[in-house]
């Protein structure tokens, strides 16, 4: 059993999906999905422990050894992210019951869980695999499943958002396919580690540059780097709340993982950053993303869309950390991957509870909610403080490392800009605080009750995680520094 952990990670949700179809009844399916996700979570913890004791795990699918066969390769970076994705997935599923019952019609609920499991499969597959084409396949699996999930939203704009996401996502995936194809053409292999060995000989050819360019652009579309982020706000805003929770906390993080993996483990740090002006581009786009998205967020009336734009801004920070090109910068990015998932997971789960009771996410509907739904609003406030980067929350930890990385590389004007970006976050978070706590509730509605317990509990687990990992940073910081160090070592 233990040797098969890498493949089990992907197979558990994959097999669970069609079984849900067989089970049919929504309540049964709900618990089954939760168990499948929980098993995947346990699996990921075991994998991390294994990697920490044994070092990188290499698993050949079907007994066919690499580079001919497909290899699953788990090192600290994937193990870290596997835990992140599975834990958020499980927590979101805890809250899924009441939330989906309100937002979807009865017969659609089962199909939602099927799509959810397939999306989870795809994401876990991307993380676990060591084969480049496998990345594309799982990427498309997760994307297709997410298009489906988004389209199930109540509002008809969900359909339109899903369609737009489909078009843009497919173009991105096709770019990635082109990149992989060109890489294969030059080296004859699809295994990522074999590629790493063979690429240096052919590095200076135009084909490899083109392959890298196509690949990076495709991945940047998937991770919603400015200006390729246009699909994200609507997709997150109109999707069912649980879908938003899951996607906001995981999908873009996995795309960033793909970028990191190819930059460091396949192409190598030197090639990626020296022969092409990738550093400048990433830093510039990251910064622009932070400012453009934060400013747009300030003017949003739909609170879900507001936080979606906030996500684009936070992704900008992550890319900025990557663009700095130092170990501290990479540590900051890795930290923020984890921390942002906690922040946004908590906020969107709180919003799920809010939608359950209030039915709308327009800012006007928030009037007076501070008194009526104190726990939900408190969760949003803490999440907001984390976004701003107040000490004792996780947001502060990543921000500290990012500013430190920028100062270490003597880019202090950018450090100033990063801090100004945090102040923009204060504005859009405080808009919500003011409406919720300072305005009287709208007169014509009966007072709202607090969100149901099944939604509140996962919300507060994430909120407390926000604070806990903001104080006891040993796990996240320790792992991130280790991973950053190992990625830079490989790059030599």
């Amino acid at each position, binding site marked *: 059993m233990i040797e098969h952990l890498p493949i089990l990670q992907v197979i558990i949700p994959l097999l669970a999906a069609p079984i849900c179809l067989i089970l049919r009844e929504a309540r049964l399916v709900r618990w089954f999905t939760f168990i499948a996700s929980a098993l995947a979570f346990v699996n990921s913890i075991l994998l991390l422990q294994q990697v920490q004791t044994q070092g990188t795990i290499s698993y050949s699918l079907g007994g066919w050894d690499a580079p001919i066969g497909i290899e699953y390769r788990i090192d600290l970076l994937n193990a870290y992210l596997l835990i992140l994705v599975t834990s958020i997935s499980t927590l979101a599923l805890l809250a899924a019951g009441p939330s989906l019952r309100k937002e979807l019609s009865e017969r659609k609920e089962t199909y939602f869980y099927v799509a959810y499991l397939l999306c989870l499969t795809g994401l876990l597959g991307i993380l676990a695999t060591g084969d480049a*084409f496998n990345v*594309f*396949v799982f990427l*498309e699996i997760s994307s*297709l499943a997410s*298009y*489906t999930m988004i*389209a199930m939203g109540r509002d*008809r*704009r969900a*359909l*339109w958002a*899903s*369609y737009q996401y*489909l*078009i843009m996502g*497919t*173009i991105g995936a*096709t770019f990635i*396919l*082109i990149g992989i*194809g060109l890489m*294969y*053409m030059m080296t004859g292999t699809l295994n990522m580690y074999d590629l790493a060995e063979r690429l240096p000989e052919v590095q200076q050819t135009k084909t490899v540059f083109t392959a890298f360019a196509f690949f990076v652009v495709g991945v940047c579309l998937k991770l919603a780097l400015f200006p390729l982020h246009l699909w994200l706000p609507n997709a997150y805003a109109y999707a069912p709340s649980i879908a938003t929770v899951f996607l906001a906390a995981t999908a873009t993080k996995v795309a960033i993982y793909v970028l990191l993996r190819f930059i460091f483990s396949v192409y190598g740090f030197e090639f990626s950053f020296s022969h092409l002006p990738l550093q400048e581009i990433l830093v510039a786009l990251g910064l622009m993303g932070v400012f453009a998205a934060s400013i747009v967020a300030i003017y949003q*009336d739909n609170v879900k869309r507001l936080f979606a734009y906030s996500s684009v801004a936070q992704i900008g920070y992550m890319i900025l950390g990557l663009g700095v090109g130092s170990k501290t910068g990479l540590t900051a990015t890795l930290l923020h991957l984890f921390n942002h998932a906690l922040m946004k997971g908590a906020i969107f789960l709180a919003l799920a509870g809010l939608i359950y009771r209030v039915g709308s996410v*327009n800012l006007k509907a928030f009037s007076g909610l501070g008194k009526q739904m104190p726990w939900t609003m408190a969760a949003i406030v803490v999440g907001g403080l984390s976004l701003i980067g107040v000490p004792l929350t996780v947001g502060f930890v990543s921000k500290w490392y990012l500013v430190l990385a920028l100062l270490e590389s003597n880019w202090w004007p950018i450090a100033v800009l990063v801090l100004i970006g945090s102040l923009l976050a204060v504005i859009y978070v405080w808009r919500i605080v003011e409406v919720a706590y300072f305005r009287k509730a709208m007169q014509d509605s009966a007072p709202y009750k607090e969100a149901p317990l099944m939604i509140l509990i996962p919300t507060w687990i994430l909120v407390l995680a926000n604070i806990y990992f903001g104080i006891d940073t040993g796990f996240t910081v320790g792992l991130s520094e280790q991973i950053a160090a190992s990625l830079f070592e490989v790059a030599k």
Partner: protein
Amino acid sequence: MNFLEQYNYWIVIILMMSGFYIVIAHGNLIKKMIGLTVFQTSVFILYISMSKVTAGTAPILNEAYKVYSNPLPHVLILTAIVVGIATTALGLALVVRIKEAYGSVEEDLIQEKDLQQEGSE
């Protein structure tokens, strides 16, 4: 660097750009899907054409032949084609539902209706 010798790449480029152009330039949702399909097809052709080795035969073992075309890209493309079909199917299903919900499959009409709805919210 004979242009004629690399005609396959030219075809790929032409198809890719046509497909991409169709996606961007047309407002009709179904036409967009078609453009997307053309775009994806160009990439399939890229893979398949690159696998053909000059004077290579089909990859069936036989003593008479020494040079074989590479079968791996074909396999990869089979997968990609399936993915493409799934995407197209999903996209068209979405178009059907959009037609039901909005009454139109033209992008600008849909956006107008959305703006109206947001204005009245």
